[in-house]
């Protein structure tokens, strides 16, 4: 972000991000239901977990036949990045007490992106809240609509919905593939996951691939 828009612009950007995210919500709701979750479970995930990649991960593991708890473990590993966002946001937003407890629920990719680039606490708060709240409202609304629509769809495979899950993950991964390190880690992680598929329970291959990130992080720092 090269130029800093005025306050009205910050709110408009935040709402635009929310609307764009609604589209993910539609596909999340539909994919969740065709993967075997109920409409209520899909909505509860969006309300409580409220972090897109983690939710897709849980649903993806379940769709592949994995135990729900290994899906939850994958979701938590993906959720660790929100903790790092919080580290950067806490001093910038400078909220305390119950405000901080409430704001924490809105710490996601979008709200972080819309606030960390601001120069002042006030602008950061406006960016954080406009993006966080509009994404929260539209994400949950879209999940409900997508889940209800997904229930009335036929066999997921006939509609190619099993391929839609992979495409959704790829779209989430795409912006992160800009460095050589990330590309190598992505390829190795995929190879490790596929390598252990024949021998492990569904859900485990994805967790095993997490070790690649750990190893790559350690190797990079020892140079």
């Amino acid at each position: 972000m090269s130029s800093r828009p005025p306050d009205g612009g910050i709110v408009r950007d935040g709402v635009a991000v929310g609307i764009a995210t609604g589209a993910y919500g539609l596909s999340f709701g539909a994919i969740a239901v065709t993967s075997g979750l109920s409409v209520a479970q899909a909505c509860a995930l969006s309300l409580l977990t409220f972090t897109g990649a983690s939710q897709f991960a849980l649903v993806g593991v379940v769709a592949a036949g994995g135990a729900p708890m290994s899906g939850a473990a994958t979701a938590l590993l993906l959720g660790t990045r929100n903790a790092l966002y919080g580290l950067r946001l806490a001093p910038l937003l400078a909220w305390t007490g119950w405000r901080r407890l409430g704001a924490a629920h809105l710490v996601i990719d979008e709200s972080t992106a819309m606030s960390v680039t601001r120069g002042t606490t006030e602008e950061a708060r406006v960016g954080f809240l406009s993006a966080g709240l509009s994404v929260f409202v539209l994400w949950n609304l879209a999940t409900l609509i997508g889940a209800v629509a997904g229930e009335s769809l036929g066999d997921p495979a006939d509609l190619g919905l099993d391929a839609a899950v992979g495409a959704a993950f790829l779209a989430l991964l795409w912006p992160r593939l800009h460095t050589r390190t990330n590309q190598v880690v992505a390829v190795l992680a995929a190879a490790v996951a596929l390598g252990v598929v024949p021998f492990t329970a569904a859900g485990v291959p994805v967790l095993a691939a997490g070790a690649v990130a750990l190893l790559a992080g350690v190797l990079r720092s020892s140079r």
Partner: protein
Amino acid sequence: MWTAVIVSGIGCYLLKIAGMSVPPKILQNPLVERVADLLPVALLSALIAVQVFASGHELVVDARLVGLGVAVGALLLRAPFLVVVIAAAGAAALTRLWFGG
């Protein structure tokens, strides 16, 4: 399933609140930051691979790979998220319709 939904909900909130509450020094070390940066890449990539090639304990090539190829094309054309997902699903569905795979 409900347990997993609740666990992921509570766990993901605790991670967010931890980040906002912990003194920066504890987590702000280069190794932790680098691993946290690489973790989503590794997990998402593994999820794609498993989602596209795994069928139970077997690795198979089927219509899902066509869907992924179309998704790559759509992303190269900078298509929005929903277009990428729908194009991939449509390509896989049509492949199955034509080839019965």
